[in-house]
């Protein structure tokens, strides 16, 4: 393992965040505040409680997930797409590093960034509603696993994309709709039975449900199933990344 190279990529990616501090840190904090004003206060005041938890507190886990996923995807996809776009990718390909080291560097940095932001959002949320986290360890684990999985997905998108439009299209057309329909602002038990069944095909449901369980011990599906599904997504992404590097897909001719 060329640890120094991994560390170099990691540091390089993290330093990008410092340069775009306003965009990367301030904007999620502001959007958290906005969600609380709209859903927590304006709408939430008319909804009493869901399964014994105040609506404001109920939406916190879903809201964090709502930001964590696209952030992980964009961080990682931009991270690897940019060298492709500017041409500096030649350096990565001609350096004495393996593909797995490149992935660890880029995906590790992207996941770190989005996890940090999720924690900042959690702290911001704490200013609006009293929070209790029954299983902090599991909360962190769900957070890190989700960040890693979606960073891997972002990395794949970054490799696959050959223009800026493609880079945006999956987060916009797939991830955002799934996130909104995945029980972020509601429990899927509030839906009619048919839609409950449809929702079970939405992977996001499992992520939100498990994450919410770590806060309040309430969930739409069992925690084991949630973890299992995350493992499936993570495994799928790893297989795709492995294939990309084995074949040099869109990287090497």
């Amino acid at each position, binding site marked *: 393992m060329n640890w120094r190279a991994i560390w*170099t990529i990691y540091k390089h990616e993290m330093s990008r965040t410092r340069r775009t501090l306003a965009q990367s840190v301030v904007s999620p904090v502001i959007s958290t505040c906005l969600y609380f004003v709209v859903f927590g206060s304006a709408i939430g005041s008319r909804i009493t409680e869901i399964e014994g938890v105040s609506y404001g507190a109920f939406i916190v886990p879903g809201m964090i997930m709502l930001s964590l996923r696209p952030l992980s995807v964009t961080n990682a996809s931009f991270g690897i797409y940019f060298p492709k776009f*500017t041409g500096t990718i*030649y350096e990565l390909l001609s350096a004495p590093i393996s593909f797995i080291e490149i992935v660890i560097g880029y995906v590790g940095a992207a996941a770190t960034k989005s996890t940090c932001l999720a924690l900042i959002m959690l702290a911001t949320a704490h200013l609006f509603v009293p929070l209790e986290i029954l299983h902090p360890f599991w909360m962190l684990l769900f957070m890190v696993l989700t960040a890693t999985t979606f960073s891997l997905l972002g990395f794949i998108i970054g490799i696959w994309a050959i223009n800026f439009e493609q880079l945006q299209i999956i987060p916009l057309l797939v991830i955002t709709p799934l996130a909104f329909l995945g029980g972020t602002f509601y429990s899927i038990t509030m839906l009619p039975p048919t839609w409950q069944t449809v929702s079970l095909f939405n992977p996001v449901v499992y992520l939100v449900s498990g994450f919410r369980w770590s806060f309040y011990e309430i969930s739409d599906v069992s925690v084991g199933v949630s973890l299992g599904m995350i493992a499936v997504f993570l495994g799928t992404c790893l297989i795709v990344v492995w294939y990309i590097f084995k074949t040099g897909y869109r990287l090497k001719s």
Partner: protein
Amino acid sequence: MMISVSHLSKTYDDGFQALKGIDLEIGRGEIFALLGPNGAGKTTLISVICGIVTPSGGRVTVDGHDIISNYRATRSLIGLVPQELTTDAFETVGHVVRFSRGLFGKKPDAAHIEKVLKDLSLWDRRDNQIMTLSGGMKRRVMIAKALAHEPRVLFLDEPTAGVDVELRKEMWQVVHDLRASGVTIILTTHYIEEAEEIADRVAVINHGEIILVEDKAELMRKLGKKQLELELHATLKAVPKKLSQHDLVLAADGLRLIYTYDTHAERTGITALLKDLHEAGIRFRDLQTTQSSLEEIFVSLVRSEP
């Protein structure tokens, strides 16, 4: 041998055959020029050796290590300056150069980075963002990046494309210093003069094949033919007898005399020719010299292949 290439071929996905069974040996500490027109396969050959392009067949070793099975060893030895100016516009000069060193797994070494930046007149710009630099300065940054990890082999792909005279001089100084420290240097160019100025040996590549590999001096003798064209005032029916000792050809319906000579010969015979023309009373309105273009030379080289 520092680099040994055998039966190397590369066919791209679209069916284009960029390299057709290349065999090449490059010695330690040599300055080797790969000469060829655009699209000849120069960049593909370099890209394969550096690990950017996957070969379709054949084998390459660098310092005895196979570039595929032992890529970590070979790539650690190699520094690459690609043809295009590809840089991280938003980063500073110092950052990208240190980044390159780290990527190659080398310990940070402030003294080495300082030396590289000073040699390339970049030291004063180390904290500047790359997008604020001129094209020539960006080219220096590319070279600094390639030298950051102290390579033993340096590839310079079209290093002087769009580079001013001053930088060219500096660059050749850096190349000479590197060679003095034992670094092997391979550069590609489509300018004969460039190969002439700097290389020990020259390979001519065209359509994915090495046409010849030769010592520079020998090649220059072969490629050194030049022509002097004289536009005449009056039409000539034939080359006058008095001038028959010169290698002259009549062209443009007798309005032009063409004299072929060797630029590397001790005497080119031009003075004698002009004197004889004067004595023969042949007046001319204009004259120009031309050197056969590299393309023409390639054609003649390919034709003369057995």
